[in-house]
């Protein structure tokens, strides 16, 4: 049986999820992102709660935000794609919580990059699953999925890492 969340932690995670949804409005939609995806700062609140409370709290917040993200921008073409692109992709952001005990803001940036890399991996896998199912045999699906997802995930993760360095310093004050 999983340990019950305290009301304080439950409230903080819930508000962080709402904040992530609000930050998803400040986005840059590149013209080539025709199958979804954009550059925004919505992963920041999930990373912040993961860094404050650890992997489990971060994963829970990520999974719940994945559901909200699906409600806001539903892109549903395959059941496996739905699970990978929403709860799993945002849930793995909780991995940033591995650095929860570290006080260094540079390590926090590394944690955000690591979590972003995991999310990229999940999106690439999702692209391979659903595009692999749609495209004819012999299409270089994984290369296409990797290039497509890198085109927005790499800048998004770099910007989030840079912002978290400043954000953690200011929040600590």
């Amino acid at each position, binding site marked *: 049986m999983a340990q019950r969340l305290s009301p*304080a932690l439950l409230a903080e995670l*819930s508000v962080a999820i709402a904040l992530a949804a609000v930050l998803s409005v*400040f986005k840059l939609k590149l013209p080539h992102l025709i199958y979804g995806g954009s*550059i925004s700062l919505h992963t920041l609140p999930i990373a912040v709660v993961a860094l404050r409370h650890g992997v489990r709290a971060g994963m829970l917040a990520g999974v719940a935000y994945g559901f909200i993200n699906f409600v806001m921008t539903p892109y549903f073409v*395959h059941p496996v794609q739905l699970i990978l692109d929403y709860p799993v992709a945002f849930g793995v952001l909780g991995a940033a919580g591995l650095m929860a005990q570290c006080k260094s803001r540079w390590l926090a940036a590394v944690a955000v990059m690591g979590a972003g890399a995991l999310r990229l991996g999940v999106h690439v896998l999702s692209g391979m699953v659903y595009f692999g199912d749609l495209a*004819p045999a012999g299409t270089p699906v994984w290369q296409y999925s990797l290039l497509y997802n890198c085109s927005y995930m790499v800048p998004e993760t770099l910007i989030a890492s840079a*912002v978290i360095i400043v*954000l953690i310093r200011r929040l600590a004050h």
Partner: protein
Amino acid sequence: MPILGDIALGKYVAGTSILHRLDPRTKLLVVVLWMSAALASHGVAPVVAFCLFILATASLSRLPAGLLLRNLRSFLWLLLMTASLHALMTPGHLLWHVPWLDLDVTHEGLQAAAIFTLRLGAVVTAASLLTLTTSPLELTDGIERLLRPFRRIGVPAHELAMMISIALRFIPVLAEEAERLQKAQMARGAEFGGHPVARARKLVPLLVPLFLSAFARADRLAIAMEARGYRGGEGRTQYRQLAYRRADALATFVCVCGCGAMWWISATGVGLQP
């Protein structure tokens, strides 16, 4: 920038159709089952059967056809890409050669393009019917109830549903807060335009008060929850009660029969294989 106006919380269209009244658990399970069956089946007959079923279901939803077509428009590129790849990359009887691409359009390619594009369009419409006829809160309740058996292996179903419900309630509040902070910063001469990195940098003065305000709200919410005796999911009752009715049983039965028929048609090879 009107932040609140930019947040579309789902595409739910309120209504009283039979589809709207179905239990969210039924709709979730039926959509996943149908989509899995459709994606696993190949050939003309099962795909045509699936498309007809989706059309019949869409008519039961009493949603305007234009709305469903508008939803399909978001997937236009994916549909075009799927059709083009199949039309140009499937070997078979040559119809014509595309010299500038050095690719052949074949009879089998066109047939596969039609099948895969129709199948994808129907799958997307099935998913749209779920989100158009089920409110976010109903979906949350449905997911919580479906995840409940997994609590034994540590899946915090109640906590997840609770977080989603609270977050849905707080999104407009925090969006208003962000808008107020943004206007305050702009009144002091801040500009939120420019290239992406500059925009991200300019957002930091907005992010810090937004995070602090959000965490302060979370503290007040936690105190309110504790004061009202919140003790987690055990023994907790709900205002909205989900009920599995006869219509849900009928929908599940029709879906299982339909999936079985599609599987049988695919397995026995009725219909043309692409």
